[in-house]
């Protein structure tokens, strides 16, 4: 286990460095904004004194490096500044909107793995035969359209033509669920309101699937490629020569080594999910970080832009650390290095 711990510590160290770099980059992007951010925020009718006041409050008159220093010390206290758009602390805004986005992205990520990996395994097992061709074309179609196109198509088919799922939102208005975690699928269960619980899942199903489609395609393609590589290894040939059942060979001997490289890419795909959540949320009127993000960007709300991007990147980095540790745990060559 020692190797795993050492690896984890090193990985977290690098990630902190990268996160620091991300904060510098975002901060730099936000400061090249054309015009006076304070003037943009207050509008053309504001008095010059008001603008000066806001400039002082945002440290805009100081050099950029000093501005970044103020930003970092605020960040250390968990303070990302005040949003000029909502007039509330950016942290509060994000805490309000983040759970909806996370719920969508997490369920979508589970769909991506639970559907994509089995499709990839099937495709590799029936390589060159019709199930393989069908799965390959489907997964390529999945990655060939942006999430908002799938969202529109799914909504049209399964919410309008076949009214199986609700059209928009997270929960029917008639339910009043006290907020505990912000995840409605959990909060409704805590409240013991099973009708609302079902309703929350029904609202979640279509957006999550629309978001997952390209990831499913990606995961299936990747698993297939890795499995085919493994299938050419001698130990698989030996298992086949022993006459072991194909299913057992596929699930146990070919899949495990193929899972490790797949996992790394799935971690990267998570980034795509976080970004594409913006698109799917817009179609389904999902009250997540997207609407907030687009609004603060259109209003050139510096603090909120920096805060939102930083939080999203931090989540992405966190997921990749977890994936990285998982691959180490799964890979016996690394895990058992100490025992030798």
């Amino acid at each position: 286990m020692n190797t795993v711990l050492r690896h984890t510590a090193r990985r977290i160290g690098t990630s902190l460095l990268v996160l620091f770099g991300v904060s510098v980059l975002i901060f730099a992007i936000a400061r090249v904004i054309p015009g006076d951010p304070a003037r943009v925020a207050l509008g053309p009718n504001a008095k010059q004194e008001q603008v000066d006041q806001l400039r002082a409050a945002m440290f805009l008159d100081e050099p950029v490096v000093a501005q970044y220093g103020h930003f970092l010390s605020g960040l250390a206290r968990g303070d990302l500044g005040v949003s000029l758009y909502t007039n509330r602390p950016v942290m509060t805004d994000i805490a309000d909107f983040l759970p909806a986005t996370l719920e969508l992205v997490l369920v979508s990520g589970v769909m991506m793995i639970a559907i994509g990996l089995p499709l990839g395994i099937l495709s590799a097992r029936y390589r060159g035969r019709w199930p393989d061709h069908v799965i390959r074309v489907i997964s390529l179609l999945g990655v060939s359209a942006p999430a908002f196109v799938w969202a529109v198509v799914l909504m049209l088919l399964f919410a309008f033509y076949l009214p199986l799922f609700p059209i928009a939102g997270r929960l029917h208005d008639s339910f009043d669920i006290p907020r505990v975690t912000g995840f409605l699928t959990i909060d409704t269960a805590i409240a013991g309101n099973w009708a609302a619980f079902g309703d929350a899942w029904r609202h979640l199903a279509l957006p999550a699937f629309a978001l997952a489609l390209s990831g499913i395609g990606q995961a299936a393609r990747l698993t297939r490629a890795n499995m085919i590589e493994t299938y050419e290894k001698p130990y698989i040939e030996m298992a086949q020569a022993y006459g072991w059942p194909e299913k057992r060979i596929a699930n146990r001997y070919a899949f495990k080594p193929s899972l490790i490289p797949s996992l790394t890419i799935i971690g990267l795909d998570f980034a795509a999910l976080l970004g594409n959540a913006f698109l799917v949320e817009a179609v389904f009127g999902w009250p997540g970080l997207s609407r907030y993000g687009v609004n603060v960007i259109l209003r050139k709300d510096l603090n909120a832009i920096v805060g939102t991007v930083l939080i999203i990147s931090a989540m992405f980095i966190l997921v990749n650390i977890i994936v990285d540790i998982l691959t180490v745990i799964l890979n016996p060559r690394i895990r058992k290095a100490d025992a030798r």
Partner: protein
Amino acid sequence: MKRMTTILLANPLSLLGVLLVGLVVLLAVFAPLIAPFPDHRGAVVDFANFNKPPGWPHLMGTDVVGRDLFSRILYAYRISLILGVVVLAIAVPIGVTLGLMAGYLGGWWEYGLMRLTDVFLSIPPLVLAISIMGVLEPTLMNGMLAVTVMWWPWYTRLVYNITRGEKVEGYVLAAEVIGASKTHIMFREILPNCVPAVVTKMTLDLGFVILIVSSLSFLGLGVQPPTPDLGSMVAEGAKYLPDSWWLSVFPGLAILIAVFGFNLIGDGLRDILGADR
């Protein structure tokens, strides 16, 4: 090269890809000749024919101000393809050069460049483009800039990985021994060995650039109206679901066809060149 083309076209899926991409390129290039209503690409209003379902003479119907959807899609293809080519024409040389430097020069170059790449790759691609677009004015030029900024690191990482493998090969050592310059070794010796992988990735990426640019426009942060763009057309059309379904479904299908075509070719190339990294 000729043999490669033959192998590529022998695969039915790759052939389909070539046909789809060929169709899209032809439609885009000859848009002024093919489009039944070429002036509908701009701010035209034809209230006599607004919101018509697909039929004759409006093959894909008309939008809420009466513009022919088919004509607008053809012109949107033009912009998407130009954007895709320009973005890659800027991002690929930058990314490849930095990748060669990081891989071959090693040391601080390697550490600094690869950490920089990590930083860019740690911001979800669409989110990075969105934030750049948010800070700048949403114009076509800035859209290109935003997508270019998020695209080069992928090529740096790809070329870096190849270069690290190549620099210990005999031919590189031989070139070093006879005193070839570092620039010569990077660009004349190692670079040709990166070309297959880079070309394959570029084919796949042309599709993905179209996809990302349309996503930006979908959020209102890319190509601005009245210039036709597939993403903003879907966004506009989604407001009129389910009645005027053609407004969002046809532009969406147009994106799907173009990207699917590029992906099929890219996949075929990857199979032939074995450049899967």
